[in-house]
């Protein structure tokens, strides 16, 4: 397959940051086209700087390329400046390694971490010359397969994809590859391949399901239209993380990206049960990577990459049953090597200052970040984020006493049952953090940054039935909060507040809980120029409200119907046929508990409360401790002396 680089190269001097389009990353793989039996293009439909560090894509990329007869290359969204030049000069969308056109591959796998990348999928398909709608594709076109957290409700993009993979991708991509070894759409025909796809666990083929609607706009039923499609598609779960030590050789970009570190997923899943958190619900149960497995991945990854930072990733990293042994072991091992550790997601109550000291021992001490999510004790019970204010103040006091000067606190606005008072309580928390910080450090210049996101109800969570808060209310509460923070100028001047207006969150809400009718809105927005909706400088609210009015209202529904409307228990939700393992009755009961401000425990340390995941996925909570320690390594100089 010919490279399109010679056509692309003259365009690159005319675009911003051309380095993102050249490929050639350390640890990337380019294989012989002719020798591959199955060829995957893996796309992250956002900017390269965001997409390159994505762990999911990196894992699948390495896993597929380890198969001798499989070729996998990567693609990222191109910015509008290059898109315009590519259209003008008829350059198709390409992969970054060998600059092969996307339409030449057998599969285009697209990973959706967020719904706001849906318009970028359409750009990529169109630039690649692949028909936007799956129904219009022929045997010569790639299969378009979506994955990632967003596709636990892929209905808004159901018309544009051939299939979606629910849950962990490691085994599913190998199963799909196996199926394609027996024949691709080019050899056995597209219809046959779709039928075989539907037979793979965790693979959902939207074309095999009919959705019917009632006159009032509600879904009447979602039923398979062929015997090969199961009534419900159940997510895939990778049981033993130690069997999947990926990435082994992380990609190291030339271009600057959002995370430049050796990331190791120390466990998958979370049972804290925060009710807003889709990731925590759909990735259950908890599966820990072993201490030895973590140690080996870090060692090999640092050697292969030259990174100076190790990120210990998970949904709540301090919750690993052996986090103290991991951080101390790594800090000992890399003492004196300018290697820093980071724990990107840390809970206040699982955090202690010994841990903080270990992670900053060998390098810089950046700010500490915590996510209380709700300002008042009441709203924290609603969302089941059981962090007490005393815990928070105790933790930040200790941090300030040990030399930290800045904490960042994440909150959400627009939560179910939320009132002005719940949001204004955030100001009180921030004031007390500054006071505690001054007392603990003996200095006046401590800082607290409040970062606030608009809440979006997500499928497969207890809040999937909730009415989303309208943007005007969110914006109004945040204005009041800013005023409340500044009521005491001596405290307020040390408090920063960051937030976005509530409009992108409303559109994210439409795309998160939408059904197949929302696909027309996405296409219309894209045709009107909608691109990169996750970027505030590109997001255009007017495009979305116009398109929603034009496409939804003739069908008797609307933007508000999909977002700010509360759902009833018997409503057929668009993702009813997609099984995340959670028992729908348990979810509903948890929703009722939320409305009553009743909290739920973490099943790692308390008895099972029957969310349904373990029996339905044949797995179990896997937590340590193993009682082992990491053995320090002596750094060896290769080229020295």
């Amino acid at each position, binding site marked *: 397959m010919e*490279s399109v*680089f*010679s056509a692309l*190269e*003259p365009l*690159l*001097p*005319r675009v911003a*940051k*051309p*380095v993102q*389009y*050249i*490929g*050639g*990353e*350390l640890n990337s793989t380019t294989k012989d086209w002719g020798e591959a039996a199955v060829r995957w293009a893996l796309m992250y439909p956002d900017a390269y700087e965001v997409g390159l560090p994505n762990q999911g894509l990196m894992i699948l990329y390495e896993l597929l390329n380890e198969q001798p007869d499989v070729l996998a290359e990567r693609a990222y969204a191109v910015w509008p400046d290059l898109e315009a030049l590519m259209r003008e000069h008829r350059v198709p969308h390409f992969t970054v390694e060998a600059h092969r056109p996307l339409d030449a591959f057998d599969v285009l796998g697209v990973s959706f971490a967020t719904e706001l990348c849906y318009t970028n999928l359409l750009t990529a398909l169109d630039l690649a010359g692949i028909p936007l709608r799956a129904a219009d594709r022929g045997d010569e076109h790639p299969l378009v397969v979506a994955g990632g957290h967003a596709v636990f409700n892929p209905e808004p993009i159901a018309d544009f994809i051939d299939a979606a993979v629910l849950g962990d991708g490691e085994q599913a991509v190998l199963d799909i590859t196996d199926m394609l070894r027996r024949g691709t759409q080019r050899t056995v025909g597209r219809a046959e391949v779709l039928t075989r796809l539907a037979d793979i666990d965790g693979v959902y083929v939207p074309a095999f399901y009919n959705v019917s609607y009632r006159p009032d706009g509600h879904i009447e039923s979602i039923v398979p239209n062929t015997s090969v499609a199961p009534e419900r598609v159940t997510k895939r779960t990778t049981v033993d993380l130690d069997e999947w030590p990926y990435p082994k050789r992380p990609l*190291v970009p*030339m*271009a*600057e990206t959002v995370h*430049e570190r050796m990331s190791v997923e120390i466990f998958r899943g979370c049972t804290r049960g925060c009710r807003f958190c889709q990731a925590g619900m759909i990735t259950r149960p908890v599966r820990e990577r072993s201490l030895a497995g973590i140690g080996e991945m870090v060692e090999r990854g640092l*050697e*292969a*990459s*030259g*990174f*100076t930072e190790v990120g210990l990733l998970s949904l709540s990293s301090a919750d690993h049953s052996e986090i103290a042994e991991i951080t101390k072991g790594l800090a000992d091992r890399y*003492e*004196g090597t*300018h290697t820093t550790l980071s724990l990107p997601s840390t809970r206040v109550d699982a955090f202690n200052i010994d841990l903080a000291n270990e992670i*900053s*021992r*060998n*390098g*810089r*001490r950046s700010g500490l970040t915590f996510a209380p999510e709700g300002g008042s004790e009441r709203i924290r019970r609603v969302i089941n984020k059981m962090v007490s204010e005393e815990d928070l103040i105790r933790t930040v006091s200790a941090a300030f006493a*040990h*030399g930290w000067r800045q904490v960042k606190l994440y909150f959400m606005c627009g939560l179910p049952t939320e009132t002005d008072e719940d949001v204004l309580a955030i100001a009180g928390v921030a004031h007390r953090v500054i006071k505690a910080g001054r007392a603990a450090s003996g200095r006046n210049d401590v800082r607290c940054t409040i970062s606030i996101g608009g809440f979006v109800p997500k499928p497969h969570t207890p809040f999937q039935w909730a009415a989303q808060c309208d943007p005007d209310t969110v914006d109004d509460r945040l204005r009041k909060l800013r005023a409340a923070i500044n009521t005491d100028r001596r405290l307020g001047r040390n408090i920063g507040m960051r937030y976005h207006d509530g409009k992108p969150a409303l559109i994210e809400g439409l795309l998160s809980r939408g059904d197949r009718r929302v696909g027309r809105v996405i296409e219309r927005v894209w045709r009107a120029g909608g691109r990169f909706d996750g970027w505030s400088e590109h997001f255009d609210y007017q495009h979305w409200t116009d398109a929603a009015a034009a496409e939804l209202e003739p069908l008797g529904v609307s933007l508000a119907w999909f977002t700010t409307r509360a759902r009833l228990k018997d409503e057929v939700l668009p993702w009813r046929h997609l099984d995340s393992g959670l028992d729908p009755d348990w979810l509903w009961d948890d929703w009722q508990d939320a409305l009553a401000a009743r909290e739920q425990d973490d099943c790692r340390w308390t008895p099972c409360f029957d969310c349904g995941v373990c029996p339905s996925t044949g797995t179990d909570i896997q937590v340590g401790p193993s009682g082992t320690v990491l053995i320090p390594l002596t*750094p*060896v*100089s*290769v*080229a*020295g*002396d």
Partner: protein
Amino acid sequence: MPSGSDRGVAANPAPPTMAKVRVRFARRGRMRFASHRDVARSFERAVRRAALPVAHSHGFSPRPRLSWANPAPTGAASEAEYVEIGLTCPVAPPGLASALDAVLPEGIDVLEAIEIPLGAPALAELINASRWRLELPGVRPDELAAAVTALMAVGELVVERATKDGRRRVDVRAALVRVTFDEAITNEVIVDGPQPGVDGVVGHSDAARCAIMTAVVRQTIPAVRPDDVLAALVAVAGLRPPVPPMATRLAQGLLDDRGRLADPFGADRVTTSTGPAWSGAQPAPAVSDQHDAAS
């Protein structure tokens, strides 16, 4: 500020710089689109992967001691980039060069390394001009020659460039020392140059319609870049290349009074080049059969 014992780094004071090595490297092919920051980051990782005993700065965020001289702008290729590496113990330059080259991305190629005394003059004192080759696909050599002749005939030619700090004005004519262009070189490069797509330098199918010039440009503040030279040719003669021209820095050094560049490694060189040979972009000597458009 926290006390020293709190900060961790103070417990491991960075060892001092005991030796210095200078490295000449090339930025070839696709890597011409990397910015200087991108290249600097990839070197910082490469010295770690090669396990070189690199000295680090002191303080809160220790950084490897790499110092850079006059990096080529993003989009331009180069056969003559320089970086100086501070080491905590001496390392034989040929071994350092090959170890570094092995771990750098393809297209960032280490050509030569030499050890220099700790008190040696700074790299910046050994460089005050560059020799650039500009390839203009779709432009006839006689068109280019006419434009260059027109440019060299004026006393001053100021072009404006947008930068992130606003607009900057540079006098291109004042910085241009000499320009040569030769059809023989044109044909030679087209015929013998590296493969298209591998290095990206050539790949223009129509040999007759690719004009090539070599320009010695004095280092000025702000610097005159290849883009500025092209803007000057547009301004003075209306030259409009149909596709973006391709610039390659062939050499840097100190200008002598005959307009030639003295190799910054000349005085300190004890070993020969360890990098891969690359015939297509060896610095072209200012030989007598070239037509000097000016001096």
